[in-house]
């Protein structure tokens, strides 16, 4: 009997607020993810995508402006980088690491892998790791499959093999899980308790869904809603002593009034004491040591049954 297979990825109950402790007595963890992908849809970054005005803005003015705001507020970020775009940034990626940021992988071209064979996905994964290691000078610890604007769902796409392949390849964490708002374990095999540490993601804190979404010219500009979502979540999670995360795209948030909104919000965030702002890898390392799966992944015996004439 599969353990709720096809329905759940983790254990039955998440950790409560009282269970949570951050390093040095800090009150709230803050994770910032910057997505360097400019992929519009499931094909991943195309020639058209990389030559668009938005992508040009992203790799020049947009990124420069975003980095200056992050620096002003002394925030470390994790950059999700598709291997295909890494040569475009080249040494700038190493400079990000020198500034204390992290470079994580985001697929070969940030393409949809959900229908690939296991072998093909594995080959692409290995190539991604190789390219990024070569350009960045160190092996990526994290893997992201962030959503693209044309995706029918806003959670990112993976295949049934992805988590297992990431474990095999030695990745320390998967960067965008939706089953919790704190780190949690994505179980790839319930019998052996094989599990991937997963960091939380939620599209309400991702700029791309509020800035001329789904496309420039006809999309809706709701920067006010994005800022209220960030503030509402940060206040609530700070109160609970949990974790606040945000996902940023230089081509979106780097522009004009949006950048000012980010700057103002981060100024507010930084005015609150007791924030721990690690990279994804540092957060994952702390989590694995403090809340190891051996003691904190609670897989109850399944009472899930197969019923005649029901979905199994």
């Amino acid at each position, binding site marked *: 009997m599969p353990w709720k297979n096809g329905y759940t990825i983790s254990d039955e109950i998440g950790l409560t607020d009282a269970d949570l402790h951050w390093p040095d007595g800090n009150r709230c963890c803050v994770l910032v993810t910057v997505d360097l992908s400019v992929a519009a849809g499931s094909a991943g970054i195309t020639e058209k995508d990389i030559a668009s005005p938005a992508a040009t803005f992203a790799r020049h003015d947009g990124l420069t402006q975003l980095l200056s705001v992050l620096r002003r507020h002394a925030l470390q970020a994790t950059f999700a980088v598709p291997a295909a775009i890494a040569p475009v940034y080249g040494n700038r990626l190493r400079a990000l690491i020198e500034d204390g940021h992290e470079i994580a992988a985001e697929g070969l071209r940030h393409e949809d892998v959900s229908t690939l064979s296991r072998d093909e996905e594995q080959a692409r994964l290995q190539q991604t790791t190789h390219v990024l290691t070569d350009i960045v000078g160190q092996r990526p610890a994290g893997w992201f499959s962030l959503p693209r604007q044309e995706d029918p769902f806003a959670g990112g796409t993976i295949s049934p093999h992805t988590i297992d392949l990431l474990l095999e390849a030695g990745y320390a964490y998967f960067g965008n899980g939706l089953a919790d708002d704190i780190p949690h374990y994505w179980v790839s095999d319930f019998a052996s308790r094989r599990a991937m540490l997963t960091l939380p993601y939620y599209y309400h804190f991702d700029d791309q869904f509020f800035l001329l979404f789904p496309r420039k010219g006809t999309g809706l500009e709701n920067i006010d809603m994005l800022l209220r979502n960030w503030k509402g979540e940060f206040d609530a999670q700070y109160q609970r002593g949990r974790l606040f995360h945000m996902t940023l795209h230089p081509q979106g948030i780097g522009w004009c009034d949006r950048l000012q909104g980010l700057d103002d919000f981060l100024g507010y965030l930084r005015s609150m004491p007791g924030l721990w702002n690690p990279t994804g890898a540092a957060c994952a390392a702390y989590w694995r040591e403090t809340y190891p799966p051996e003691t904190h992944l609670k897989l109850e015996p399944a009472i899930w049954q197969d019923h005649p004439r*029901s979905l199994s």
Partner: protein
Amino acid sequence: MELSEIAQRHDARHQFISSIAWPNDAHIAVNLTVDFDAMLLRRLLNEPPMQLAKGEFGGRVGIWRLLELFQSHNVKATIFTPGRICELYPQAMHAVAHAGHEIADHMWEHRVPNEPDLEQDHLLKTAAALERFAGRRPVGTRSSHTRALLKREGFLYTSEDSASQLPYYVSDDNTAGSTLLNLPFHYAIDDAMFYSFAWLGSGNAAQRISDPERVFDMWWAAFRQQYNAGGYLNVVMHPFVSGRALRIAMMDRLIARMKTLPGVWFATCEDVARHCLAAVPPSLA
């Protein structure tokens, strides 16, 4: 058939309640309702793994936060629960029952089969699964189950759709003895409408993902209008949606603000249904 004839036949299935006196001279009855479907609907629609994980948040985290929220305000809610959720989140279901909330039907696997024998099978399986936690069979449902079947199985009310602002009676088409009370909910007072991407298959250009302050203002305005009218409000929350920290905080403010006014009756759907059935019994069979 002429439109006027269709309208007439349709109306004949309905018995509306023009006004109702709530217990203790309350100005309004408020039903806080929770659709605990977590990832079941996503599974039914064959949505991809990330969508399932998004729903899973409701079972691992969201439902627990909603229980804390209700307890902190000392209010009882109605948890509409698919039967299969009992096999996925038994600990949460124990907590729901222990806290004294009403546990009501929300279909077996979030669908009502067309085949009558299978429909009955699903309804009975769900009732039995819920009874194991609640200690009694459910008396209400949020579903499109056949009313004649529901009535035979002892159900008192449905809570779906909004043909009237106040609770009303409605029967199946062409079926005598199928009249049930309906406690209306409106999609504009449903969290998923404002917070859930790709809700009910909506396309990217139709996304309405919003923020809690805007929703707070809308729902407060809805409450005030019904409070002044001596009416009814059914607030629909999904644990995977409203269980997010920023929205729990928003519901906390909304309930607290409702409580600043005198005469607000926070009740379970069953309590409201029993009151309506006693105060304004149906004349339809």
